[in-house]
């Protein structure tokens, strides 16, 4: 079995000296693979995969392949890439020159909703709920819109309560600093929020349209 790490342009810069990497070329693209190790899933194995993808990302554009993608042999890899060649080439163009930054927003401290309702009456209770929903939606927009304006593309996924926002932004490689500065500005402007920003990551959230 061999494990896939990324889809890149071919030819590209020489492969980093990690994990016995090899290239499987397919018509202008290449799949970066290595012989698969133990099938055991662990945090270490996951970080190793990430390390390889990030070493590749350092000097080339790529579509990261999700951890745990394994195929029988080089022929199977060639077939898999050939089948989606144009789609993959278009996806690689979309992320060219960019990296992913992740942003998560939580209410800070006890700004979240009270555990037990404390309204005096039914109508007041419903008004509280409505205000809460409206103010949450407003807060999320106040953070997500200025950040999206600095990004080539952005996407959100379901926030996990009490999270308010879970978003990924596709940022030009040389625009990470202005983006981080904007996050810091938003944090200063919104003491009621905790904003966590991590990256740069391979563009995992932008490989599919």
């Amino acid at each position: 079995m061999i494990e896939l790490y990324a889809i890149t342009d071919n030819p590209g810069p020489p492969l980093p000296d990690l994990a016995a990497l090899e290239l499987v070329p397919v018509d202008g693209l290449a799949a970066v693979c290595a012989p698969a190790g133990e099938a055991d899933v662990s945090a270490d194995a996951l970080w190793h995969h990430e390390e390889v993808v990030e070493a590749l990302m350092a000097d080339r554009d790529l579509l990261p392949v999700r951890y745990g993608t394994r195929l029988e042999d080089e022929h199977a890899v060639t077939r898999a890439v050939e089948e989606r060649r144009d789609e993959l080439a278009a996806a690689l163009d979309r992320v060219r020159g960019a990296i992913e930054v992740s942003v998560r927003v939580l209410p800070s401290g006890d700004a979240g909703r009270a555990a037990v309702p404390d309204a005096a009456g039914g109508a007041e209770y419903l008004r509280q709920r409505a205000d809460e929903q409206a103010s949450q939606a407003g807060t999320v927009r106040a953070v997500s819109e200025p950040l999206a304006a600095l990004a080539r593309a952005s996407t959100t996924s379901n926030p996990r309560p009490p999270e308010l926002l879970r978003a990924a932004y596709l940022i030009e490689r040389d625009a990470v600093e202005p983006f981080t500065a904007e996050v810091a500005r938003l944090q200063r402007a919104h003491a009621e929020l905790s904003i966590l920003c991590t990256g740069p990551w391979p563009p995992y959230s932008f490989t599919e349209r």
Partner: protein
Amino acid sequence: MRDKLLHAPPDLDPFMGELPRLDDALSRRVNADPESLERGLAQLVLTIVELLRQLMERQALRRIDSGGLSDEQEERLGRTFMELDRRMAELREEFGLTKEDLNLDLGPLGRLL
């Protein structure tokens, strides 16, 4: 693990709640002792009830927005939801569950609530 923090809030702890969840996901085992089974069942049932409660509450808020309810109806409806909310809080406490526990990870579909 390299440093990936581009911007960290003053208090990082609230974001760390996910780490145990990651460990769970990587080494998921069914723990079949009777007490945790009961708690697991309660968690599942309460999750479904909470989902319905939230859906109905949102529906009610929409009806109020569109002006379809009298003041009296609004008050009665609100009381019902408030009571449900209180009962859910009590049940959560009884089974030692938090709000975050009443959510299911549906894998690629995301979270239930």
